[in-house]
């Protein structure tokens, strides 16, 4: 008998211990459990929660790897030690130096996010006496991708504890949460430590500690620059599309996000309705703002001019609307469940995201706020969609009877 049998015997021996769920979590992570169903199985499906979660994580890995290279690339570029990479395969981008800097800053974020988050899950599993849920697997991967590279690790840890406990566990754990936990964590960081989550320093590794010294470098994002009615030098649309711009760790490369989106849609894990409708909503709001500028209602002196005059399609490649639409809005727990509801839900996310982006220069990145807001309204949308359907069918029934 091998190690697996020994572990199984250990489990049986300690059946009544309080800490058993913690042991089970590790055990089932490594091995298929020995128990089999005693009565007939009713549903045989391969797409259980674990596989769904893993699919999303696979879709996120390219973003993470790109984020590491980009962290190093932005760092050295701001220092002036390397030249700008030409295109996605640019020689100065995929270098070992970039990866080393990126790994040194990004991997600790991943470790803290998973370590702290899973620790909270373990504690709650032991308290409640149920098995550890897989819900944190995706959240833990998303969190490092949506924070600035230089965020202090203890802040991330505090935010993760807050997000998992207040965002998820108080509502009853995985599958019961109203708000997307990853975005709750980001919102907490944003409001608790605004100096580390916004402004023109935090987006490039090393910019904060150099601020005020002769070696100071800029760490501004494109969106922040637009909000100030300026722009960043030397960045064209292709840089935005490939992702060679400063930003949160994993959200810059629109190219890889689109690949991830196709993967999610193809595996039927992400809802294409939500993704498409979010983008339509964003484009619609962008068009309205362009119309306002074209009509001459807003002049160049207005503080909204910088972002309002951005051509509507460019809103999709600056900022993280695409990342939000693909990985955040589609979270099956917090999104609308009905098909019609998904269209409404997605459209409003896109619409409100761009509205916040333009109208509130303090929150140029309104995507996470818009998604959190619509998370709250998703059940209401579903309710009215379902009621509308019931009403329509009642009418049909009446017509038949009469």
């Amino acid at each position, binding site marked *: 008998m091998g190690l697996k049998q020994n572990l199984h015997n250990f489990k049986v021996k300690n059946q009544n211990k309080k800490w058993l769920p913690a042991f089970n979590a590790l055990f089932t992570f490594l091995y298929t459990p020995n128990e089999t169903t005693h009565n007939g199985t009713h549903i045989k499906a391969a797409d259980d929660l674990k596989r769904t979660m893993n699919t999303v994580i696979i879709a996120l890995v390219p973003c993470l790897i790109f984020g590491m290279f980009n962290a190093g690339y932005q760092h050295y570029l701001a220092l002036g030690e390397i030249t700008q990479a030409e295109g996605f395969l640019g020689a100065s981008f995929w270098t070992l130096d970039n990866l080393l800097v990126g790994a040194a800053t990004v991997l600790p974020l991943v470790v803290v996010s998973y370590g702290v988050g899973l620790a909270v899950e373990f504690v709650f599993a032991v308290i409640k006496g149920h098995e550890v849920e897989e819900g944190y697997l995706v959240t833990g991967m998303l969190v490092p991708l949506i924070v600035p590279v230089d965020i*202090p690790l*203890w*802040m991330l840890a*505090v935010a993760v504890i807050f997000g998992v406990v*207040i965002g998820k566990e*108080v509502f009853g754990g995985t599958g019961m949460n109203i708000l997307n936990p990853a975005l709750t964590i980001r919102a*907490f960081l944003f*409001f*608790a*430590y*605004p*100096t*580390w989550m916004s402004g023109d320093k935090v987006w490039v590794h090393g910019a904060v500690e150099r601020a005020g010294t002769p070696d100071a470098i800029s760490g501004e994002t494109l969106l922040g620059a637009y909000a100030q009615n300026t722009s960043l030098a030397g960045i064209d649309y292709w840089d935005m599309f490939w992702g060679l711009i400063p930003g949160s760790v994993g959200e810059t490369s629109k190219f890889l996000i689109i690949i991830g989106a196709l993967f999610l849609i193809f595996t039927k894990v992400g809802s294409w309705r939500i993704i498409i409708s979010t983008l339509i909503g964003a484009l619609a709001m962008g068009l309205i703002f362009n119309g306002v500028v074209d009509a001459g209602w807003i002049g160049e002196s207005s503080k909204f001019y910088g972002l309002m005059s951005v051509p509507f399609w460019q809103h999709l490649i600056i900022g993280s609307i695409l990342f939000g639409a693909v990985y955040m809005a589609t979270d099956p727990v917090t999104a609308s469940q009905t098909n019609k509801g998904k269209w409404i839900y997605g459209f409003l996310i896109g619409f409100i995201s761009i509205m916040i982006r333009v109208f509130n220069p303090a929150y140029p990145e309104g995507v996470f706020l818009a998604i959190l807001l619509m998370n709250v309204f998703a059940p209401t949308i579903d309710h009215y969609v379902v009621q509308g359907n019931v009403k329509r069918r009642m009418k049909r029934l009446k017509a038949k009877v009469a």
Partner: protein
Amino acid sequence: MGLLSKKDAALITDPLADNNPITIQVLGICSALAITAQLKASIVMAISVLFVMGVGNVVISAIRNIIPSKIRIIVQLTVVAALVIIVDQVLKAFAYELSKELSVFVGLIITNCIIMGRFEAFALGNGLWRSFLDGIGNALGYGVILIIVGFFRELLGSGTLLGFPVLGDPIAKTGLYSIGYENNGFMLLSPMALIVVGIIIWVQRTRNKALIED
């Protein structure tokens, strides 16, 4: 037998725990969210409400048999308003800075649901002494929550307690700040007060399962 009979003592102790006006009856939330960013303001608010409720309950109880029931709400409002004006004037005279900080919220004690609630539910049907105890008890229950929330919000949000920098100086980077600690700005915003109250409710109901309603 001490000063209070068992039944009377319950009037004071019940609202402190299992019948707390904020965490169980969920009354008076607005002021609990608005003024608890600082401990000092919470304490002053708690004392003000203690005064208004104690005296107000006694006054209402004393005149309960001569209030025409049709206009009793107006009479109650007049009593609260009079008491609140006294509190407001006292604060303006002796603690002007603080009264500016509390601004409109002292005036809004008038609309604090706990006060009208106790007048209606208790003082109108009970004698002077019991009404007084009930007022004190509920105001203490309210004050305790206010002070707990204020304590955490000021400590974590500003790093001070009653204005004393207990965690060090954030600008000179002394104390905790020298190792990279920073104040949590979210604590100063009202939503966090709601979350802190929520956590108190959570802890209380976990300790006493009988309080959980379906």
